[in-house]
Each structure stands twice: as structure tokens, then as C-alpha cells.
């Protein structure tokens, strides 16, 4: 009888592993590869079903290969169990490998191997025990570890080093999974430490390290072995070449590094232990051969230990100097670890790190971005009042050529350093200008406000500033922050610019027409942001009172923009138009120069345009609120503050002419303002909120509160939002705050103006709600402020 022909699929025989690999590699497309693998997997499945014991390990090996290529292999899990349970070593070898690759603690199946492991641990030959210990240490779950702890403990004290070194590391894994097992594995350590076998030693030290890191209670116990550890290290360092353990002339660097790390943990915050190891550390630090990576690895670990324990100051300086030498190493990996470590030390060992400043600055030029980034951070941390000029020069150079993702950090770093250490105001202004020119697009939003405030406050430099800015603007109108500041300055000090009265720079002859043309160019350019155009328009308006010639051109521009599509610009233009037409006699007074504001100090930080101040040209500037930008539009929109208050603002008369009239109806008197004392209303973990008060005399019902949020803690405050509510008889508006982040360690605070109208002169009460993130937690605080100074409402 003829046999029935088999279906074509069955004719292809199952491949051996090398053949399978060969076929997969020969596949030209992903689809082809998938086909080969699916065919073979079908064979494998069939073989598993048939239960062919002798070939099982070969089938599993194939499955493990395709698993590595990313194909599903879960149907092999049970086969792993069968192979592990087999008495044959070949089976166990592949079975345990499969368990490590396919089984993990998330699968229920994994517990089934616990019994096999137990048997192999107690009865297997050494290689088999080795397999079991390895598998346990790789994928052993907490339950498995609990079940097998006793077996492993027994193996710790068996004679064979091969098994003991593995058992010790198995114990490490078990403690990581089940910390309570520390009780079992702590006692044997002392004896294990007397071993000579490097494998057992390194495992034991790893175990002790793990015990100490997990449980502070273990520390006193193991501090007793510090002398022993020092001795082991001494023997290693003093011993000559050993073929078995030397790496590039260093005796067992792996073991040395482990010992040094354990010494660090034991010596931390403990004078006595630290003293016992000081000499040895000094010896390793000075005698280790640094020509190859192995030596440098040991040296690096030594440095980390020295700086983390209470060392003699001479030793610390030695450690920092080693890092400094690392910076000069041609191996960039070594430079990398040096920069990282120096960054961590720059606060605690500042003067020692300062000595290496020139080398750090050299590292800015490194083509590897991760190195230059670290060099930048470190450089910024090293700036102080004596090196500010040279450091700024280096950093400006770096800013010009650094990769894009570092620009913002570099720019703000330079600006911050300039704020803290500027030797002169002129230098400060020049520096900010240079940063704006080089990296204008990357600076923080408040850079504009800072610069205008700075210039505004330096009367002697008005002429100089406006000339410099005019030149910069004429050269390039694309850098928005620079354009905004320049426009503001030209508007404000245009008369100084035109009179050519600047002595500090080269004398400049600028015609009125040229200035107007330039501002008009900014206004029309598609490069200009809406905010920038706002600045330009206002500047043009101000110039109408500063120039000698007639205002026709300006009036023309202003009237054109009265129909501009941009609402902001349109509104401004319409109001300025009104100023020209109906209120021309008032124009000079309104557009007069900004009063000089008192500079509150380098920490004050503000947003640009959102700020405002009740405007009165005759008022002395005793107000603690600082408004560098005299945005006329904002001044006129007095009661259109940002939302955030609990009280809805009253309906306002918003016709442009109307609001101007409203303001101009106010009588102007010369004030004599006694400053009202400020009030601290909130103080928690370094975040403080202080309120300061101003009562403009012309508007008796109005109280301006400036809330300042400052941060002396070590952690940044982010997402800061302040909301306020007042009793019904009051009206409250909140202005847009200067920002929502207060950086740590006294970084620039957030300021926010609150306007309170109190026509009834009722005692002021206010509720504040703060939400923010601090120390990685989100915080919400609601509280009432009750004890306002009487002057704020009487």
C-alpha cells in the first residue's frame, strides 16, 4: 500500500541550531525572516508536544535564539522546567539559561523551579550548584529567596571556593529582595573576610556593603573590620605583579575598588574609622600608577572616598588636585568623571577647586557635548568677584560657538553672574548687551526688564546706553530682546541720543529722521514680535516730545496703526491719536521721562510689560514696586489686571478716551509719603512671602500691595500661583506675576502687584491661597492675613 503523500509543510525537516541561524541571517527581508522563524517555531512546538526528551535542549536553544531576535517564546517556559529537572548536565545548562531568559517573577511558572533549585543546591555536583546559584541570583523572586535562604546559608561555609563565592553573591541578591534575610547573612561575614580567595573576598565585601547600605544598625558592627579591610588593601597595593590578578600593573583593581567603596561607607561621619584609613588612602592616592584606566579607576574611587569621609584637609586638597590632574588627561572618560566630581565638590571645597579654574575653562572647548556641558556648569559655579571679568570673557566666547541646547543655560548663567558680581554698572550694561546680541533668542523673559531697570537706574549712563543700543539696533533688528530694550531706551532718552552728548563712546551724530526711520523699520519688520512693535510704537510716541522737528511723521504712523489688525497695537495707536488730537496740551507731561526708581538689590526680578504703577509725574519714587517699562497702555488700563482674585472686577468704562480722561481728572499734588511698614505673611521651609504697601495720595481708596515670594531653601519652588480674596466691601485686582518659579538658594523672587480699592476705609483683611511645588511635593496653603498696618486702610 502506498503511503499517503505528506503535506508539503511536514516535509521540511527541523533545522539544527547553526543551520537555523544561518537561514535567518540569509533572509533578505523582515518578512522572509519571519517566515523562516515561524516555520521553525512550529517544529519546536510540535517537538515540545511530542515530549522528545533527548532533543529537548536543542529545541529550547533554538527558541532562545529567536527570542533574542524579539519573537515570542513563552511556550518554552514549561520546557525550561523539564530540562532543569533532568539529571543530565546539558539539559540543566540550557534549562537554567532558559529560565533566566524566559521566566521572571511576574510569571506564576517561576515558582515551580524553586524545588529543582533546592534539590540541585543540596545534592548537585559543583557545576550544577553553580547553575542553580546563578539562576537564583539573576531572577529569584522574594518568595524563592525566602524558601532557599537556608540552603544558600549552608553553602557559604562549604569548603569549595567555587561554590562559596557564588553563594555569597546569591546572599546579596536575597537581601536585596528580602531585607529581613540580613539577619541570616550578617554573622558569616566576619569569617568570610579572612578568606584569601579573591572571588570570595570580593563577594564578601559586596555583601557587607549591601548590609551596611540597607541597615544603619549594621554599621557599628562592621566598623570593627576597618583595620582588616585596610590590611587587605595594603597587601594588594604592596604586592608585586600577579599573573592571575594584575590588570595593567594594578593588583586586582576590581577588589581594590570594592574595598575603597566599603571604606567610604564605614568612614562616613565617623572620625575614628576615618582616621584608621587615612594613611592607606593617602598611600593609594600617591602610589597608584595612572598610565592606564585600571589605575585611574582605583584612584577615582579613592578620591570619592577621601572627600566623603572626614579627612585631614591636606588629604582633601590632594584629592581635589588628583581630579585637577584628571582634567588634563587625554582620555576623555577620565575628564568626564573629573568634571562630574568637581561639580559635586565646588561648594564644599571651593578654594581647592578654584585652583583648577583655568583647566576647567579649557574644557569648555571640548567637542563632546556632555563634557562641555559639565564644564559650563562648573565654570559658572566658579565665578566670583575677583575673576568675573575674565570668566565672563571666556563664557561669552563659549556662548558664541556652543551647541544650541547649551545656549540658554550659558546665557542665563552669564546674566546671573553679571548680576551678582558686576564691577561697574557700565560693565554690567555692556555684558547684558553682548549676551543679547549673541544669543538674544535664548535669554529668559526677564532679561529685558532687568536691562531696562538697570539702565533706568544708572542716570550717568543714559547717554552711553542709548548710543550703544542705537548702534546695535541699527546693525541688527532681529534679536527681539535687544530690539525691545533699544526701542525703550531710544524712546526714553532720545533727546540724549540726538544731542550727541555721550562722552564715553565715540561721538555719534544721529539725525532725527534716521531715528524715526529705524523705529519705523522695527515697527514694520516681520521679524518683530507683537510686543516688540508695541515698544517701538510707544518709543515713537515719546519721541514726539523729544525731537525738535515737527511731529507729522509720527502722527502719520500713529494714525496708520489705528487700524492695525493687532488689537494691542491698534488700541495703543488709537489712544496716542487721541493724545495728539484732544489732549495735545497734556502730551508733554504724560510722556515725560520715567522717574528714577530705587534699585531694590540684585535679587529683584520682574516680568517685562505686565507691571504697572499708579502713574503720577510729580510723585517721588519711594514706591518699592519697580516698573522699568512705562507702557502707557498698561497705565491707562488701570483696573484691567490679571485674573486670580475671588472678587469679580467691577464693570469698567473701557473706551480709550474715557479711561485716559479718568486718569487725567485726578488732581496732582506733591506728596509726602511716609513709607508703610511691610508685612511678612508666610514662611515655610525657606519660602517666604512678604507684602509691601503703597498708598498713592491722589487716590485715597487705592492700596497697592506688592507680594514678593523669595526662597532660601535648597530646592526650587515651581508652579507658584498666588490667589487672593477680600471682604465684599473691597475691590481687588491681581496683576500678572513676574513668574512662577523661585530658584533655590536666594534665587530671583517672584513679585506680584495686588490693587485693593477700599472706598469705605474698612479694616483690611485678605485671604491668600498659595499653590506650588517644593521639594518634589505639591503644596497648597490657605490662610488669612489680618494684621495689616493701619496706614494701609485708614
Amino acid at each position: 500500500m502506498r503511503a499517503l503523500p505528506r503535506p508539503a509543510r511536514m516535509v521540511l525537516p527541523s533545522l539544527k541550531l547553526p543551520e537555523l541561524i544561518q537561514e535567518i541571517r540569509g533572509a533578505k527581508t523582515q518578512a522572509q525572516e519571519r517566515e523562516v522563524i515561524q516555520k521553525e517555531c512550529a517544529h519546536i512546538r510540535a517537538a515540545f508536544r511530542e515530549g522528545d526528551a533527548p532533543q529537548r535542549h536543542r529545541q529550547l536553544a533554538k527558541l532562545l535564539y529567536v527570542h533574542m531576535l524579539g519573537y515570542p517564546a513563552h511556550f518554552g517556559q514549561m520546557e525550561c522546567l523539564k530540562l532543569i529537572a533532568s539529571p543530565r548536565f546539558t539539559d540543566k545548562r540550557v534549562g537554567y539559561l532558559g529560565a533566566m531568559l524566559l521566566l521572571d517573577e511576574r510569571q506564576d511558572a517561576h515558582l515551580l523551579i524553586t524545588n529543582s533549585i533546592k534539590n540541585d543546591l543540596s545534592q548537585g555536583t559543583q557545576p550544577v550548584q553553580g547553575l542553580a546559584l546563578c539562576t537564583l541570583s539573576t531572577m529569584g523572586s522574594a518568595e524563592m529567596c525566602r524558601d532557599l535562604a537556608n540552603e544558600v546559608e549552608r553553602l557559604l561555609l562549604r569548603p569549595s571556593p567555587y561554590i562559596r563565592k557564588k553563594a555569597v553573591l546569591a546572599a546579596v541578591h536575597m537581601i536585596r529582595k528580602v531585607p529581613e534575610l540580613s539577619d541570616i547573612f550578617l554573622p558569616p561575614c566576619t569569617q568570610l573576610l579572612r578568606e584569601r580567595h579573591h572571588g570570595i573576598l570580593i563577594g564578601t565585601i559586596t555583601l557587607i556593603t549591601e548590609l551596611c547600605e540597607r541597615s544603619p544598625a549594621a554599621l557599628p558592627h562592621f566598623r570593627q573590620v576597618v583595620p582588616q579591610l585596610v590590611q587587605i588593601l595594603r597587601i594588594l597595593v604592596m604586592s608585586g605583579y600577579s599573573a592571575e590578578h594584575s590588570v595593567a600593573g594594578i593588583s586586582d583593581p576590581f577588589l581594590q575598588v570594592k574595598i575603597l567603596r566599603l571604606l567610604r561607607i564605614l568612614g562616613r561621619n565617623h572620625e575614628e574609622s576615618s582616621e584608621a584609613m587615612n594613611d592607606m588612602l593617602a598611600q593609594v592616592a600617591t602610589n597608584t600608577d595612572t598610565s592606564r584606566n585600571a589605575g585611574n579607576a582605583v584612584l577615582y574611587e579613592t578620591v570619592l572616598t577621601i572627600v566623603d569621609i572626614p579627612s585631614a584637609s591636606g588629604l582633601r586638597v590632594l584629592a581635589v588636585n588628583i581630579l585637577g590632574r584628571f582634567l588634563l588627561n587625554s582620555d576623555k572618560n577620565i575628564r568626564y568623571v573629573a568634571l562630574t566630581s568637581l561639580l559635586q565638590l565646588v561648594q564644599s571645597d571651593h578654594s581647592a577647586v578654584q585652583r583648577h579654574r583655568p583647566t576647567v575653562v579649557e574644557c569648555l572647548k571640548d567637542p563632546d557635548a556632555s563634557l562641555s556641558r559639565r564644564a559650563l556648569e562648573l565654570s559658572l559655579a566658579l565665578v566670583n568677584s575677583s575673576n568675573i571679568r575674565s570668566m565672563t570673557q571666556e563664557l561669552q566666547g563659549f556662548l558664541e560657538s556652543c551647541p544650541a541646547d547649551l545656549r540658554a543655560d550659558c546665557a542665563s548663567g552669564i546674566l546671573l553672574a553679571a548680576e551678582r558680581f558686576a564691577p561697574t554698572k557700565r560693565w554690567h550694561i555692556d555684558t547684558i548687551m553682548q549676551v543679547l546680541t549673541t544669543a538674544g533668542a535664548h535669554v529668559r523673559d526677564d532679561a529685558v526688564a532687568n536691562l531696562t531697570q538697570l539702565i533706568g537706574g544708572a542716570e550717568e549712563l543714559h547717554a552711553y546706553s542709548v548710543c550703544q543700543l542705537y548702534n546695535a539696533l541699527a546693525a541688527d533688528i532681529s534679536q527681539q530682546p535687544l530690539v525691545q530694550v533699544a526701542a525703550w531706551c531710544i524712546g526714553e532718552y532720545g533727546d540724549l541720543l540726538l544731542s550727541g552728548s555721550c562722552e564715553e563712546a565715540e561721538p555719534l551724530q544721529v539725525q532725527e529722521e534716521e531715528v524715526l526711520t529705524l523705529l519705523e523699520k522695527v515697527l514694520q519688520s516681520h521679524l518683530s514680535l507683537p510686543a516688540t512693535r508695541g515698544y517701538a510704537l510707544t518709543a515713537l510716541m515719546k519721541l514726539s516730545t523729544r525731537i525738535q522737528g515737527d511731529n507729522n511723521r509720527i502722527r502719520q504712523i500713529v494714525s496708520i496703526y489705528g487700524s492695525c489688525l493687532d488689537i494691542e497695537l491698534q488700541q495703543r495707536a488709537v489712544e496716542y491719536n487721541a493724545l495728539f488730537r484732544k489732549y495735545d496740551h497734556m502730551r508733554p507731561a504724560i510722556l515725560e521721562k520715567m522717574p528714577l526708581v530705587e534699585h531694590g538689590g540684585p535679587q529683584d526680578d520682574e516680568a517685562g510689560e505686565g507691571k504697572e504703577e499708579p502713574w503720577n509725574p510729580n510723585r517721588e519714587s519711594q514706591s518699592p514696586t519697580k516698573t522699568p517699562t512705562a507702557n502707557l497702555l498698561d497705565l491707562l488700563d488701570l483696573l484691567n489686571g490679571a485674573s486670580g482674585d475671588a472678587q469679580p472686577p467691577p464693570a469698567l468704562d473701557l473706551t480709550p478716551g474715557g479711561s485716559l480722561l479718568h486718569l487725567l481728572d485726578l488732581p496732582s499734588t506733591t506728596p509726602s509719603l511716609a513709607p508703610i511698614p511691610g508685612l511678612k505673611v508666610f514662611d515655610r521651609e525657606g519660602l517666604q512671602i512678604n507684602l509691601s504697601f503703597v498708598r498713592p495720595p491722589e487716590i485715597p481708596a487705592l492700596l497697592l500691595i506688592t507680594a514678593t515670594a523669595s526662597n532660601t531653601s535648597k530646592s526650587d519652588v515651581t508652579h507658584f500661583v498666588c490667589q487672593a480674596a477680600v471682604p465684599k466691601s473691597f475691590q481687588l485686582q491681581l496683576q500678572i506675576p513676574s513668574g512662577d518659579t523661585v530658584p533655590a538658594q536666594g534665587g530671583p523672587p517672584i513679585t506680584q502687584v495686588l490693587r485693593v480699592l477700599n472706598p469705605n476705609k474698612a479694616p483690611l483683611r485678605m485671604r491668600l491661597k498659595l499653590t506650588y511645588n517644593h521639594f518634589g511635593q505639591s503644596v497648597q496653603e490657605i490662610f488669612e492675613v489680618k494684621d495689616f498696618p493701619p496706614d494701609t486702610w485708614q
Partner: protein
Amino acid sequence: MQFMLLFSRQGKLRLQKWYVPLSDKEKKKITRELVQTVLARKPKMCSFLEWRDLKIVYKRYASLYFCCAIEDQDNELITLEIIHRYVELLDKYFGSVCELDIIFNFEKAYFILDEFLLGGEVQETSKKNVLKAIEQADLLQENQNEDWGGLSDDIL
């Protein structure tokens, strides 16, 4: 050490040793992203990078990338030595190892690694001892017979 990956310049995985429990899906995601990140590095860049909350140490030997993920307190420079030691062991075992050896003998690559590191930590710092252990295990595998009993305790 949290994990070690070996992959080719085309991004094909040749060995994956995970010392932390993660789902298959997570392992694949990590592998894919990390391989991409490392392959994008230029030749002159240093061997260390920060990735997620881990430190990555990698080194290229011929056509294979050896990539380890270590924890914050671990010493990057000694990890480079660990990688180098592993390569030396492979080299000694296979006799001038190349990528093909690792492809066709991936189980052996795992066995050798498992004699050098255990649970992510160094278990044996003597090259000689590691190679001896592998030799003995290979021998045992060849002499498949159950007649061979346990080996004497002194061999290793």
C-alpha cells in the same frame, strides 16, 4: 549593574543580561531606545552618558557594542574594566573572538558571563579561574554519561 546588552552596529541584539525584573515589553522598549541612543553617538564622544536615571557605560569592540547600565554610586571607570575583562575572556575562549562567534555560540557567551558576574556583581577576578570553570563544564557536557559522578571539590 542593572543590565548588559551586546548589539551590532545595525542594532541587532546579540546578548541581553538583565539583573532587574522587568516585563518583556519594558525590556524591548529600553533596548530599542538605548540602542538608538548609543548608535547615534559620534566616535569621539566619551563612553559615558546619562539616560533616564541610570548611568550608561558603553564601548565598541570591532562590530559589537558592549553596553552596561549602572547605578548612581557605581564607578564608571571600573565598569569599563569589567567590559574589557569580559571581552578578554571571550577572546581567550574562542581564540580571537569576532561577532560571528557570539552569534553562533550565544549560549557559551552567556555561560562565560555567568562565571564572571553573578547577580550583577563581579564574582571572580581571576581570568584563569573563570576559564577553568567553563572548561570543566564543557567537559562535563561532552561526557554526557550519567556514569560520571560528581567532580572532586578541589578542581575549582
